[in-house]
């Protein structure tokens, strides 16, 4: 099970083409804006989350993200332990 760190909309587009069902995706940085695109691309809500500080900085609150999890850095570290490899996508 891979972990995909998605930092932008362009990164999400590249990631969605190459990730497998069951992989986990974390939206970070400007990638948090792309949560609806991620769901539209067929990513399961249970496999998708946003990095909380980045979402909050962009005015994206938990209530507005269709029930998606907002995670902190300790949880991100836990995800990196559960998944391998960890792939970063920014373009």
């Amino acid at each position: 099970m891979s972990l995909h760190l998605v930092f932008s909309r362009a990164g999400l587009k590249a990631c969605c083409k190459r990730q497998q069902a069951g992989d986990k995706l974390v939206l970070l940085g400007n990638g948090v804006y792309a949560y609806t695109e991620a769901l539209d691309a067929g990513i399961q809500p249970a496999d998708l989350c946003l990095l909380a500080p980045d979402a909050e900085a962009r005015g994206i609150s938990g209530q507005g993200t269709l029930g998606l999890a907002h995670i902190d850095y300790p949880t991100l570290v836990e995800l990196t332990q559960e998944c391998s490899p960890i792939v970063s996508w920014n373009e």
Partner: protein
Amino acid sequence: MNYAIAVHGAPYASEAAAHALSFADAVMAGGHSIERVFFFHEGAYQGLATQVPPQDHFNIDMVKRWQHLAGQGVELGICIASGIKRGIVDKAESARYELEHPTLAPGFELVGLGQLIAAINSAERYVEFPA
């Protein structure tokens, strides 16, 4: 678990360092270890000693935060090729190229790309923070 981390973004133009530092802090707080942080491409600027960011800038204490991590035993390696072409030179490179002063911040070292590979080889996880 042991981690290798790469930072590709510059201090003022990217969130790479903010993400990487917060991630690294969480790794250490969780009782894990970091084999090396490798700075590549524009990320080499993270080790520039002569940064003077505005007082209200978000990266005001980035160098100090990196140095704190170094104080905890984490190696901070700047790709020597990425560094010297951007003017980030240590004493040896400064002398080699007959430059006036070294510009590498304490706590960082210039290393070859092989150190990234060695870190990935030794670590159990590799995490990259792009520009």
